[in-house]
């Protein structure tokens, strides 16, 4: 139906689409999963799904928002699967990837402002693991990727107010978790 109202534009081949948006998609998935292998798997799955649907996508669609929605939906399933697995394999899931390439709190950044104790990082990551999907996805996009609320809202398919509320809820929980750890440390 839309033939006549489409703006003529150069249509990107799917390979060009991947090249243009791969960093954006991979960045989100990596920061969401904090695990290179999982991010790589979800990355492939995202673009394979997109590949199947690309031909039927209207010419005026927002490609980045569309791809991010696919990636975000897959990260939601990932979280669910992971939580299910975690119930069975509690011990194996306990090791956070703090020593690998993803651990930024390493040597060479030992100025006061960037010092984070291993304990703090562990608490924060562990708490992020327990956040409900929307809070986690919103937090990752706002705090780790620096996206603005309108973009996060588009990606999550919610209002800007909800996007902000998700981030704030997540921050409250993180603050409480740190507060709790601190008082435990003092009590010990």
């Amino acid at each position, binding site marked *: *139906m839309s033939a006549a109202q489409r703006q003529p534009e150069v249509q990107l081949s799917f390979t060009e689409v*991947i090249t243009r948006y*791969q*960093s954006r998609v991979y960045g989100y998935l990596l*920061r969401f999963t904090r695990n290179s292998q999982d991010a*790589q798997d979800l*990355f492939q799955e995202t673009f394979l799904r997109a590949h199947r649907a690309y031909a039927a996508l209207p010419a005026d669609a927002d490609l980045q928002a569309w791809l991010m929605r696919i990636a975000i939906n897959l990260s939601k399933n990932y979280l669910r699967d992971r939580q299910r697995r975690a119930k069975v394999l509690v011990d194996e899931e306990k090791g956070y990837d703090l020593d690998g390439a993803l651990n*930024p709190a390493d040597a060479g950044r030992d100025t006061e402002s960037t010092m984070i104790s291993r304990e703090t990082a562990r608490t924060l990551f562990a708490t992020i693991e327990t956040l409900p999907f929307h809070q986690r996805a919103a937090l990752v996009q706002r705090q780790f990727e620096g996206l603005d609320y309108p973009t996060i809202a588009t990606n999550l398919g919610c209002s800007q107010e909800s996007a902000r509320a998700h981030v704030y809820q997540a921050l*409250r929980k993180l603050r409480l978790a*740190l507060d709790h750890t601190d008082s435990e440390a003092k009590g010990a």
Partner: protein
Amino acid sequence: MRHTCTSQLPCSFNENDLIAEALGEASSSLSQQVRVHVVACHSCATLLEQYRRLHSHLHVLSMPAGDEQGLLAARRALDARVAGKTRPRLAVEVWHSPVGDIRIGKTAKGVVLVEFVTPEERDSPTSRWQTAFTLESGGPEVADLIHNLEDYLTGKRRDLGWMIDDALMRSDFQREVLRATAEVPYGTVVTYQGIAEVIGQPKAVRAVAQALRYNPVPIHIPCHRVIGSDGSLTGYAGNLVGIKKQILAVEGIPVVETSKGLAIPKGRMYVGWRHDHWFCRPDCSTLKDQAAGDRALIPSRARAEEMGYQPCDECKPHIRPLA
């Protein structure tokens, strides 16, 4: 969600305002308020400090992960998987029809594409479907399809009877909508609301309209037989509304010009009950109980009887026909 947890602190200050200030998201007036408040309120000052520290911790933890290797590996694996997928052949042709240029495409599975095209788009298609296929020019099979369409547009044929390839349908929801639309009988119209009810999602009226807007095989799947609840010919956006009118005229459905644009004169149409196969005058008292999903507007008594619909006992359209 937000309302279930209280944002009020003991001092009656809002915790979210402290978070906004810590994140640097507060407006200058809010920021001013927060700074004045924390001078006097010790617990809020502590909270604000905690949120500032948390924000900076998260900032440190968000340093670029620098996983170029991971991205490269994922990209290589993806390229291999995408390359393994072959692109089906699409025989495609533009036909200069009486209602404008129409592009028709067919794969081995069936008709995949019917598209109204402007002169600029005729030679260089701008939509994405071409990325999914290996294109070739029409041939005798597409010529047959064009004959079918020609017969339809001159009223010699009511049903195109094509096999359809649904490769360009966008979602299962859209397939549902299109399936329900395909069942609307020739020479009648229903509403978007009606389709939404038929597929069991009465609130998804706008989504139904969107799904029909991107119908990849119009005419065969008769989205032209779906109209707004007020009778207006929405959906065939822009200049395509004119085409919708022409196609409806082929099927004997009247369209009139109103102050809000082209519309079906609802008051001059019989109302059919799709389940029970009756038809009523539009002023029949039984219609107040009719669900939108059960309703079809029928332009004439002859058409209703031809479809096997019985006249209603209440309003007796066979004795008191519409003018």
